[in-house]
């Protein structure tokens, strides 16, 4: 192995020097009076927040719902991870949600929530989020705040540049962070350059139902595709993906993928892609992938995809262009006018801002440095609108306030930098505690930002909260951006790691929230829509119990004739039609999960008793004054016992 040369270490040395310089000239933190900040985030008891915010859970695999400006946590939406608290991913109705071509994958690493948009503005219909580990995109319904659909992305590995949507949610995109052999095959890793490729996937979203479908994939050079942002207004029809590792290294990327001065932003013309697909320029390649959909009966089922249309820039000229971008870019963010694209180079000393207009002109004038696998590399100076000089260290992500300002997170120097989208000069900076990743302004990635607040999503908290052993909380910080200077108002802990977030005014969705599921429309085959439909049946060694739950009893609540080793399916229907009255269900020794059943809903869980005896079951959600009385017994007899199968399904 070669000894690393000074050339290789230069960025690190530079970073250390710059850090010292910045510390020397940094301005003192502006701290408003604590009571002033407190009054601006205070939401009095019984009052409601102004914004809903949806934070990714990172390694938790879920999405959490908060109110702004209070930072109060309302709910965690179960998406990619099993949740024994509610039975999500365990119950018969939800298990299929986690199916993939790798089998049932009961967790993931969720990174980027993305609200559906109409005319470039969040419309409050759906929320998408990517599963980074086992490439997937989930869609949540914002009236139930439940996961409605998960589609797996074949040929992809590390679905990081996802699930950003186009202006009218025509597509949600998914680009691979790790290039891999596509289709997957057994090859030596050091044949990376010959055998590895990246794919940019375009998932069509049905405009009325939200249902997703894998429309096509673009096979691109084997770089690491990191983040993306769709064009809007004049740039509608394009999506911009950042990439790093244009060195195409397959080992020790922290050094080997940091060699070149510039990597690329890939500008992809998806309308051109549609045309090429329509002209039959794509090839249909076999690819098995899971598509899990919650049906009108509220039961998730898997449909298996078997192939995907793949196009390449070689056979579809005009499909993609590379914009040279300094040093391992991370975020690529289109401003509200659709004209500017800010790219954050993790190791860069400036924030390059590209001009869409100049990009079109450069394409027209053929201002091309070189062509890589059919993708013209446009000249940096020909596409540049400006560079934000001396922004700080480690620029990652940019959001906009709609007032002509960009706000960029600086991971290494741990701060938010505000800059002008006309002069490209830094206007203000404020520290983040600590190591900010993404930042988010309500609507700050759309055509019409609501502005007002900025959320810093931080990786490290160290001394900011009461310590809790080695594992500390992750954190968000609420920053007021209404004034000339940014002002920090509030720190609040988050569930899991908040990579990215989205927010929208509460008024857009709060009145559309479901209160109950309509029992009359419950079409679950095992539903008992009333106590008269409760009952028990045996099919071989499988027993089905149709059980109702209402304050404060189960029907039936005495079951006999179960034998050791039977698979006992408890199908619990909550027959309440009253707001905020869920019932729980749990039985002694159940090996998977409890159930939490919403009014009007049916959830089913299987229990395999392992020993004879009489075992209680009970409601796990304190539902009423007589909640403690909401219980029952199952008698389990030895295998082959003659105890008849009975359940008391009539009221005594």
């Amino acid at each position, binding site marked *: 192995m070669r000894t690393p040369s000074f050339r290789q270490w230069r960025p690190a040395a530079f970073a250390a020097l710059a850090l010292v310089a910045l510390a020397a000239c940094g301005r003192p933190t502006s701290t408003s009076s604590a009571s002033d900040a407190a009054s601006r985030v205070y939401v009095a008891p019984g009052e409601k927040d102004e914004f809903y915010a949806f934070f990714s859970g990172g390694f938790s695999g879920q999405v959490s719902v908060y109110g702004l400006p209070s930072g109060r946590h309302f709910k965690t939406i179960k998406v990619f991870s099993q949740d024994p608290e509610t039975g999500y991913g365990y119950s018969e109705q939800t298990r299929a949600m986690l199916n993939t071509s790798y089998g049932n994958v009961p967790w993931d690493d969720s990174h980027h929530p993305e609200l559906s948009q109409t005319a470039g503005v969040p419309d409050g219909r759906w929320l998408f989020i990517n599963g980074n580990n086992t490439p997937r995109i989930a869609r949540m319904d914002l009236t139930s705040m439940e996961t409605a659909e998960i589609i797996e992305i074949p040929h992809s590995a590390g679905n990081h540049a996802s699930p950003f949507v186009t202006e009218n949610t025509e597509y949600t995109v998914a680009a691979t962070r790790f290039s891999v052999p596509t289709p997957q095959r057994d090859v030596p890793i050091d044949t990376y350059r010959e055998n590895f490729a990246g794919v940019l996937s375009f998932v069509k979203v049905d405009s009325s139902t939200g249902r997703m479908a894998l429309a096509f994939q673009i096979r691109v050079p084997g770089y690491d595709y990191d983040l993306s942002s769709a064009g809007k207004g004049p740039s509608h029809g394009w999506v911009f993906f950042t990439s790093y590792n244009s060195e195409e290294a397959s080992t020790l990327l922290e050094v080997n993928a940091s060699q070149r001065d510039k990597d690329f932003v890939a500008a992809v013309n998806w309308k051109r892609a549609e045309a090429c697909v329509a002209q039959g320029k794509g090839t249909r390649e076999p690819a098995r992938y899971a598509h899990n959909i919650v049906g009108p009966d509220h039961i998730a089922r898997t449909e298996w995809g078997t192939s995907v249309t793949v196009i390449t820039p070689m056979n579809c000229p005009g499909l993609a262009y590379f914009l040279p971008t300094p040093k391992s870019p991370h975020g690529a963010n289109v401003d509200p006018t659709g004209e500017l694209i800010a790219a954050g180079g993790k190791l860069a000393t400036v924030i390059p801002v590209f001009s869409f207009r100049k990009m079109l002109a450069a394409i027209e004038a053929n201002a091309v440095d070189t062509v890589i696998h059919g993708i013209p590399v446009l000249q940096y100076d020909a596409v540049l609108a400006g560079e934000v000089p001396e922004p700080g260290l480690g620029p990652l992500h940019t959001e906009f306030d709609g007032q002509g300002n960009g706000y960029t997170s600086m991971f290494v120097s741990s701060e938010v930098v505000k800059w002008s989208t006309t002069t490209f000069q830094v206007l203000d900076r404020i520290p983040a505690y600590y190591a900010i990743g993404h930042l988010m302004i309500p609507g700050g990635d759309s055509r019409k930002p609501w502005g007002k607040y900025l959320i810093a999503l931080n990786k490290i908290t160290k001394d900011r909260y009461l310590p809790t052993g080695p594992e500390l909380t992750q954190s968000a910080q609420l920053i007021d951006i209404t004034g000339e200077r940014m002002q920090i108002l509030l720190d609040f802990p988050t569930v899991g790691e908040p990579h990215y977030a989205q927010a929208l005014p509460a008024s857009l969705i709060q009145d559309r929230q479901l209160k*109950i599921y309509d029992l009359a429309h419950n079409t679950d085959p095992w539903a008992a829509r009333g106590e008269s439909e409760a009952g028990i049946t045996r099919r071989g060694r499988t027993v089905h119990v149709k059980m109702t739950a*209402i*304050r404060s009893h189960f029907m039936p609540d005495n079951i006999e004739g179960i034998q050791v080793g039977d698979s006992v399916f408890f199908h619990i229907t909550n027959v309440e039609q009253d707001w905020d009255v869920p019932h729980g269900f749990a039985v002694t020794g159940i090996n998977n999960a409890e159930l939490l059943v919403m009014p009007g809903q049916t959830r089913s869980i299987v229990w395999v008793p392992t020993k004879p005896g009489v075992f209680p079951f009970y409601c796990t959600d304190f539902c009423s004054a007589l909640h403690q009385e909401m219980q029952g017994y199952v008698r389990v007899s030895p295998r082959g016992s003659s105890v008849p199968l009975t359940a008391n399904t009539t009221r005594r």
Partner: protein
Amino acid sequence: MTTRTRLLLALAALALTVTYVLPLWHIALEAPQYPEGLGLYISIDGVTGQNPHDLQSLNGLNHYIGMHKIVPEEIPELRFLPVAIGVLTALGLLAAAIGRRWALTTYAAVLVAGALAGLADFWWWGYRYGHELDPRAAIRVPGMTYQPPLIGSKQLLNITAHSWPASGGWILTIAVTVVVLLTYLAWRRPRPVTA
């Protein structure tokens, strides 16, 4: 009867028909756990929740104190009342057509008797719901009964019940009042002397 009296009588009789669409009575319940409100509308042919599932929720709550389930299909009055309203409307129009004071007076008497009978019947249902409690109910408070007020407000354990006429009930009240007033005026005015 003057033409004006006959016209007003006919209008009052026709006004009764609004009860085919508008509810007669509203019982609203206030409880700490129901910030969104809970209540029932009583109309001539049914009992419905003020929110879509209130009747079911109320029956659910009432089972704790052992109250009978309110099942509109089992209340015979709700089948009989639509017919009665139709008959009363027809009788009013007939009285207006006859145009004689005796007709008006007879009609007023029938109408008032009908209204009083209706109120008494409503009170009787409330009495039975409030008093005929399952002795095995989970919550038994010695001496406590749960009859809702006929009109006005009353505290029943954690629930405050308000009972007032609803839009149809008010229109019905006004119609009855008009007919009674017309009768009173008809008797005060001297009879036209006939030759």
